[in-house]
């Protein structure tokens, strides 16, 4: 009986979704706002990557919300795992082999560099703060897996995280004081396609990159510490 009800419900849901999806014109730009961003975005924000100009400038306030969600998740995890006594793990676990250890030491700065490149050049090439931050966190994951016993310092991690958030909100508030509204692009746009262009966009994306990297590395740190 339950199975029949489940199948009937599933059929209704599938029908509803397929009817709704059929109406959406994929691949066409029927919306005015999307067309506006594509045509005017480069001139207005000075960023070559339109995705970045939407994420940080046009929809900057939504990005602040996303950052807040990630921040809350990291704090929640820290509250669950961080409150227990941290065990000393360095002596108990088996040391990884020399080849793995050397490879990790060689790769760790390279991955960090790639992550930093992704978020510093977020306004020119694909990628940005979130992607770069995730790559930076994966470098720390590699370190946790191979160079055992090494840990991110809790305090510096929190300082970087807080500074990233403060810079984002501070830039927004300066825009509110000087210009027309929160996250107003008050700095000069600069020359198109150069590193120092697009006003506050690169500054905010670098702050986001540091914040996301520190948060995700902290999450991994908490989980790995607990799992040993």
């Amino acid at each position, binding site marked *: 009986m339950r199975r029949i009800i489940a199948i009937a419900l599933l059929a209704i849901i599938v029908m509803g979704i397929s009817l709704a999806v059929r109406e959406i014109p994929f691949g066409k730009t029927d919306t005015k706002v999307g067309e506006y961003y594509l045509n005017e975005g480069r001139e207005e924000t000075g960023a070559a*990557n339109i*995705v*970045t100009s939407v994420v940080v400038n046009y929809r900057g306030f939504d990005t602040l919300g996303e950052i807040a969600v990630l921040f809350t998740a990291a704090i929640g995890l820290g509250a669950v795992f961080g409150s227990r006594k941290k065990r000393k793990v360095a002596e108990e676990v088996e040391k990884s082999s020399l080849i793995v250890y050397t490879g990790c030491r060689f790769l760790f700065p390279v991955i960090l560099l790639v992550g930093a490149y*992704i978020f510093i050049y977020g306004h020119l090439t*694909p*990628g*940005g703060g*979130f*992607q770069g931050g*995730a*790559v930076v*966190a*994966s470098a720390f*994951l590699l370190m946790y897996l191979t160079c055992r016993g090494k840990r991110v310092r809790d305090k510096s991690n929190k300082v970087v995280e807080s500074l990233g958030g403060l810079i984002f909100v501070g830039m927004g508030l300066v825009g509110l004081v000087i210009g027309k509204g929160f996250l107003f692009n008050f700095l000069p746009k600069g020359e198109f396609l150069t590193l120092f262009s697009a006003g506050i966009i690169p500054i905010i994306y670098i702050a986001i990159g540091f914040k996301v990297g520190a948060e*995700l590395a902290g*999450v*991994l740190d908490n*989980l*790995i510490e*607990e*799992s040993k």
Partner: protein
Amino acid sequence: MNVIIATVLVLVMLVAAIAALIFKDLLNAVIASSVVSLIAAVIFYLLQAPDVAMAEAAIGAALVTAIFIIAIRRTKRFEE
């Protein structure tokens, strides 16, 4: 050519997704779900969305897999 590549990738992705549901060994299931993420990243790239592809590859294929494996280490590896 692009259509053929995309079709093959989507089929592999479907197989991996079904495998992730079926496997009783949770470690295998996690690896299968990371294959889904990896192929999704490639498809995003083929659809000219490199920003999303980067996020999917870094978060879906790397970090989420690691977090799942850490969780499996703390709990049970095999599903009854």
